[in-house]
């Protein structure tokens, strides 16, 4: 289910493209999490804060914790508002947070971070962020952390995409037909086979998700009527089936290497008119009649 994408925690990748944009789905998932009472932190890099908050109503907006990296990413204005250490520092600050309860960290967008930070550093930071619930040996209640990252597929090569996919617990890839959007959800659980699901949906103006069934089935291709189905068992040069008589004859045949009692008798008493085979051997001039002594032909 699309809503339960965030339930399992870990790193969730939301892969979108130019045709199928993912920010509305991201905002819809954020809205749903806030309504469920979870804490949501947003690291905004690509769009301004006003644009991001646009469309949410006041109650939701007041509960979002927004870290703005868009206005002043390199901290040139030197005011206290901007994040002092840049993107990496912001991520690490979130890691050191010790609030109990489940936390959703939404990264808008992960592509921006991937382009501005080295891939390995980003992978390591995301891994420590998303594994926060399992470590920490103190007796605090299990804090489930879910890192939701928006990733623009076309901006990156197969290398970084593969690296992030291998770290992610869930991947949602957006695609669709002309009229509807679909989300292909791939769940990667640690020691189990991955499962995937396709969900058709649309996002309503107030950022709630409307789940739909699939597109109408006319789009399936018809089998080509021109090429007839070929039956490979016709016109064979060998026999695939045996008649009953042939089968009986086959079963009663004694095979050459099977030692039955008749054969034993035949070998033990070679007489009684049976043509036994003899071997006639005429030694050559060079043949050695004595098997034991190899030097017999030397004249010493």
């Amino acid at each position, binding site marked *: 289910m699309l809503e339960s994408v965030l339930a399992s925690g870990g790193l969730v990748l939301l892969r979108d493209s130019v045709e199928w944009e993912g920010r509305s789905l991201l905002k819809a998932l954020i809205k749903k999490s806030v309504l469920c009472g979870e804490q949501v932190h947003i690291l905004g890099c690509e769009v301004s804060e006003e644009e991001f908050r646009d469309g949410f109503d006041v109650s939701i907006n007041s509960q979002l914790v927004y870290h703005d990296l868009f206005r002043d990413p390199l901290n040139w204005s030197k005011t206290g508002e901007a994040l002092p250490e840049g993107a990496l520092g912001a991520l690490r600050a979130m890691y050191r947070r010790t609030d109990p309860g489940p936390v959703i960290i939404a990264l808008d967008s992960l592509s921006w971070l991937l382009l501005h930070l080295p891939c*390995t550093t980003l992978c*390591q930071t995301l891994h420590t962020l998303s594994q926060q619930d399992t470590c920490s040996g103190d007796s605090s209640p299990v804090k489930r952390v879910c890192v939701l990252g928006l990733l623009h597929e076309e901006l990156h090569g197969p290398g970084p995409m593969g690296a992030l996919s291998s*770290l992610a617990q869930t991947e949602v890839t957006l695609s669709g037909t002309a009229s509807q959007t679909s989300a292909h959800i791939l769940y990667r659980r640690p020691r189990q*086979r991955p499962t995937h699901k396709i969900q058709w949906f649309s996002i309503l103006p107030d950022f709630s998700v409307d789940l739909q069934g699939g597109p109408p089935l006319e789009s399936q291709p018809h089998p080509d009527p021109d090429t007839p189905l070929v039956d490979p068992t016709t016109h064979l040069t060998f026999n695939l089936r045996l008649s009953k008589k042939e089968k009986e004859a086959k079963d009663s045949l004694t095979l050459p290497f099977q030692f039955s009692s008749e054969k034993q008798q035949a070998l033990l008493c070679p007489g009684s008119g049976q043509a036994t085979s003899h071997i006639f051997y005429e030694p050559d001039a060079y043949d050695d009649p004595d098997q034991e002594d190899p030097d017999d032909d030397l004249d010493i």
Partner: protein
Amino acid sequence: MASVGPCGTGTGTTGSVAAAASKNNVTSFQRRGPRASSSDSGGSRLVSIAGTRPSVRNGQLLVSTGLPALDQLLGGGLAVGTVLLIEEDKYNIYSPLLFKYFLAEGIINGHTLLVASAKEEPEKILQELPAPLLDDNCKKEFDEDIYNDKTPESNIKMKIAWRYQLLPKMEAGPVSSSRFGHYYDVSKKMPQELIEASKWHGFFLPKKISSTLNIEPCSLTHGYIKLLQFIQKIIYEEGFDGSNPQKKQKNILRIGIQNLGSPLWGDDVCCTENCDNSHNLTKFLYILRGLLRTSLSACIITMPTHLIQNKAIIARITNLSDTVVHLESFIGSEREANPLYKDYHGLIHIRQIPRLNNLICDVSDVKDLAFKLKRKLFTIEVGCGVGHCLRNWLLSHLPSADGTKHILDSWGHREQKGPGWHTAAPEYQ
């Protein structure tokens, strides 16, 4: 290199080696000093370490990989001082199993373990090791597994290729710790007391490297340097390289490194095609092999080579490792729907077997190997050769039940010889 036995005898088993040595011992000169082992009569000193055995081909000291079928494919086992590289499958489901089998085998044999990972804590990895199958449970488990797999037509005796029935059955039993390879039950965890009784060292990268933002650039990735230093320290302190003379009882160090080369180790070989430090991984393997060759240790490394973009690096890594095994799972690939592969979960390719003190290596004849993860066991089978494919195609395309039986009579059936191995016996009419 830890090699065992007199060089150049070339005889078969160790029994005959010892016998030959004793036959030559007709001299009146007696060796003074303590004898290393009582079994041998002074001709050669066999190193008797628990869980090892000399290879029957070249006397190399071997340890078991934890999977007896894999041991057979590798020519008896993994040689001490070498690296076993497992190229991971795409979703990393089956390669951790081989990793855990290796470590579990070390615990059963009493070897020292060194577990290094950047993803999971070593304690967690050790908690999830499979439980060993012991004598009393084994027969029951295997019969149950075999029974579930037996298809109804396999009860027909073979009439033409009857000699295959005379083949000795593969050993189906696991058993006491004096055996070389053991069987493990994947559905159960190793008992806690065995883990606590074992000696292990863990290396978890995020803990060893504090988040320092200013790391001076050096020729090797910081994480790799730390790992190499850690391994070197353990080898030196515990005397695996013979440096500590007080150590009387020799033991093997089993090193397991998980997900080497992934971005979590700080290496960007998986992220970019033309990375700046493209020699990190190859240098690491080179230095690691140097450490292993001078000590009594064996190493297993799992590496996500499907993420490495530069194929030349994969070739270099293969050359720098000793034994390379590639797991290819069918999940998500087009082969999953292929009816030929429906019984299996993936293919296993033995990419390289080392030639240690030898001119030729012990490559097995079978090339089509497939693996299957049953509920309790990971089995490797002779999978999908031409005979099998053709048989299955004919079976699926015959319309009548009589025809089916006829084909089975002439093609024979696949016998279950044991949990680790199948022999395929196609009969030809």
